[in-house]
């Protein structure tokens, strides 16, 4: 161990207690980031301890990587340095839950699912449904901007987040926003930290607004012989008055992955559309009818999702790609974004086997939102070749030409060293670098993982 870090270990132990500082490969192996083991893992128990830990690391210039549940740890470039993983799991307390005002404040290490379960008991929902939602922490949800299918109806993290507490890279705690649903008292500092991937500090507390729970959930899955049917059905849905929670478009490989969980029996090569509905019994029933007609009009076979089956069904859908061979070290997960009307085109491109040297992709799109997830599953132990990198770059070029981007949310480290996780970034990059320089001049917060080497 580096001599400075030797002293750091003692300081961290003094802050959090000896049992909460882990050292040695056997104990830190579970916290590897892109194959790089941190030298220490520290587990603070309070927000104040986080501030002390960050200050202690900053003093010796030790690079920190915040870690909630690790669900998004594959997002980004390999770290430039990785001395200390700050594991937030012990900060898992509810701070304030106000059912009458539909706002909730919790520590950043709390799991989203635990918060959702608590508020549901009082008839409220936080309508965010990211992949791995059984596990993802609130801080990770915000820092990695993790969203799911129902962003179509409800929007994303930035639409629900009211306030944050953050420890800045020098250890200074600050508060952003508040707990009222409209707030322009100064700059909208929450936005600085949403999707900043821990590069500007560590989020320690979050406040969200909530919604009353819908009276009913239901849905429909349509199976189609090709892409043309679902493409048209999505286009017509978006032009209609219908207000589904989500419309997910699945390519045949994704339908195959989903089939066992839902006991579907798709014809080989079937494409899928999964539509979630929520609201009053009247609007749910009407939309179920309209979608059944729409699927049929476009050559689809309807599999209704009845009110009693929705929880299990949508859980299977949103976790579809995260749950596929999670321990396969060769798996590659990409997120592509494009203007909404281009979604089907990019789904088609991401599905092209030829392009990836015969590698089949399971592709799922939030088809009303312009977000496409593509999962490539090479054989266990297979090394990505130059052709895989070239294929990803070509797919990225297509997304960029359409006005969008391609992000790598998980890939073997050798591939990440060939293909940047984010792409070139836009003309705001110079300002992003200046913000990083202003807040973290020594580069101690998650260095190297973000856009443009930030």
């Amino acid at each position, binding site marked *: 161990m580096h001599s400075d870090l030797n002293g750091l270990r003692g300081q961290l132990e003094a802050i959090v207690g000896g049992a909460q500082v882990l050292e040695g490969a056997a104990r830190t192996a579970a916290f590897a980031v892109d194959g790089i083991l941190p030298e220490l893992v520290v587990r603070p128990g309070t927000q104040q301890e986080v501030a002390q830990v960050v200050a202690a690391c900053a003093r010796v210039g030790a690079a920190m990587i915040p870690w909630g549940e690790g669900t998004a740890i594959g997002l980004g470039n390999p770290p430039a340095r990785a001395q200390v993983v700050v594991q937030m799991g012990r900060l898992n307390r509810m701070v304030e839950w106000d059912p009458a005002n539909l706002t909730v404040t919790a520590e950043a290490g709390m799991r989203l699912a635990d918060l959702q379960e608590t508020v549901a008991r009082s008839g409220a929902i936080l309508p965010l449904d990211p992949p791995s939602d059984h596990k993802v922490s609130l801080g990770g949800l915000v820092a990695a901007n993790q969203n799911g299918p129902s962003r179509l109806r409800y929007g994303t993290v930035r639409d629900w987040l009211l306030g944050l507490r953050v420890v800045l890279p020098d250890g200074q705690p600050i508060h952003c926003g508040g707990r009222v649903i409209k707030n322009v008292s100064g700059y909208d500092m929450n936005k*600085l930290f949403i999707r900043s991937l821990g590069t500007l500090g560590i989020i320690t507390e979050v406040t969200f607004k909530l919604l009353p729970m819908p009276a009913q959930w239901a849905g429909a899955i349509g199976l189609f012989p090709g892409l043309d049917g679902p493409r048209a059905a999505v286009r017509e849905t978006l032009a209609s008055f219908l207000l589904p929670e989500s419309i997910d478009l699945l390519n045949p490989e994704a339908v195959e992955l989903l089939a066992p969980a839902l006991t579907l029996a798709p014809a080989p090569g079937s494409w899928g559309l999964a539509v979630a509905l929520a609201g009053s019994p009247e609007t749910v029933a009407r939309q179920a009818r309209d979608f059944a007609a729409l699927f049929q009009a476009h050559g689809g076979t309807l599999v209704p999702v009845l009110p009693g089956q929705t929880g299990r069904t949508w859980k299977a859908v949103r976790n579809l790609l995260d749950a596929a061979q999670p321990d396969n070290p060769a798996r590659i997960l990409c997120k592509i974004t494009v203007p909404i009307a281009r979604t089907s085109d990019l789904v088609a491109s991401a599905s092209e086997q030829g392009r990836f040297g015969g590698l089949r992709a399971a592709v799922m799109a939030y088809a009303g939102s312009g977000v496409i997830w593509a999962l490539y599953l090479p054989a266990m132990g297979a090394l990505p070749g130059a052709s895989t990198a070239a294929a990803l770059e070509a797919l990225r070029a297509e997304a960029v030409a359409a006005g969008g981007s391609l992000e790598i949310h998980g890939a073997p480290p050798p591939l990440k060293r060939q293909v940047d996780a984010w792409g070139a970034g836009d003309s705001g990059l110079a300002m*992003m670098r200046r913000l990083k320089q202003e807040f973290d001049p020594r580069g101690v917060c998650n260095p190297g993982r973000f856009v443009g080497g930030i």
Partner: protein
Amino acid sequence: MTDREFVQELRAIVGKANVLDGSVDLQLYQYDGFLEERRPDAVAFVHSTEEVAKVVQVCNRHGRPFVPRGGGTNLTGGTIPFKGGVVIEMIRMNRILEVDTASLWARVQPGMFNLEFGNALAPLGYQFMPDPASQKASSLGGNVAENAGGPHCFKFGVTTNHILGLTVVLPDGSVAHLGGTAPDPAGYDLTGLFVGSEGTFGICTELVAKIARLPEGLKTLLAIYDDIEAGSKTVTAIVAAGMIPATLEMMDQLVIQAVEASIHCGLPLDCATVLLIEVDGLKDDLELQAKAIEDICMAHGAREVRVAKDDAERALLWAGRRGAFGAVARLAPSFLVCDGTVPRTALPEALRKVAEVALKYDLRIPNVFHAGDGNLHPLILFDWRDADQKARVIKAGMEILGLCAALGGTISGEHGVGLEKMDAMRLVLSEADIEAQRRVKRTFDPDNLANPGKMFPQPEEVASAQ
């Protein structure tokens, strides 16, 4: 450099007729909806991103401040050129450049009025959600700068929730394209940071706005109360029943009387308060929702609930609400609008305390506000010619912001900080919180030329010495 030479440089960029520097002309640009006045050195009418960039570059070269201006409807002094310099008038950049209904966005220039934009989208079947009450005269660029709200923001969110991308001229005169037409661009959310920065990070010259389908149906209700507390308790009860109406607006008796005198929309003059409630969405359950809301209102002490029978009746009710600020001008020569926001359940207590402040300072304070958001708008009436009254108004305004903060709320829901609430920032933010915001400002604008003298309180030692 003399003012004359400086103005010559501006004229070389935008044309001779597009720069004002005469004393009478400049007077027209020294005020907005707030109480302060400061005269600019020049006003430049701009027509393109390139012109804005060049004007800002000239300001940079000569160390002159600049302030963008749209409709000039700002209520907190955001458009007042506090340190002089150039007012950059955006109002001629008022075109829609592109509408993509299939991808649900429109590219539009910032000088277009909010309502004009809405009127252009409506025939296509689409809408832009933010709808500040000033929408007839407030520009989209101003909406972005202030992160404007409006009645429909209760259900649909404020301006920042509906902006996908921005073209901006940064304070150094460079042009940046932030975000775009696809969701989740890589990197920090500079678009989100820029929205609500009140012209202090630079100037928005083009925006990509999210658009949404017009709803299939809507129902508008007016609930009439003899007791203002009953009205505000109804607001919480509606949400507790699992409903999020598109709007939940409230007006008290003084406002109702002023509105009736000027707009004649049939509001009862003898009631204590009215709630204007609208539900929208799929038509299948709107009747049921309206009935459920009517029942809740009656159960919470409404004396009558009217349901608008047709579009004409609905339009009349909305004309009353949207015209409320204007109508209140009948009651007194001037008013100061407070913009404090509280958790919804604290509304009854907040209204009681606002009434106490009115008594304490011997002022009349009517209320018209976004009840669903807990966003109060006490309008403190006064006569600007009466210096003593004006001093009491400022104290009363600060006290109202203080009581909102103490009830767990904040000092501004949608009007911004501007000049008005600089010192009130300490009511809700610590020194460290404020310093973090200053660091963002310094990063965007190291020379402090973009709308200087706004947003931030004086340093603590100066404030406490006074």
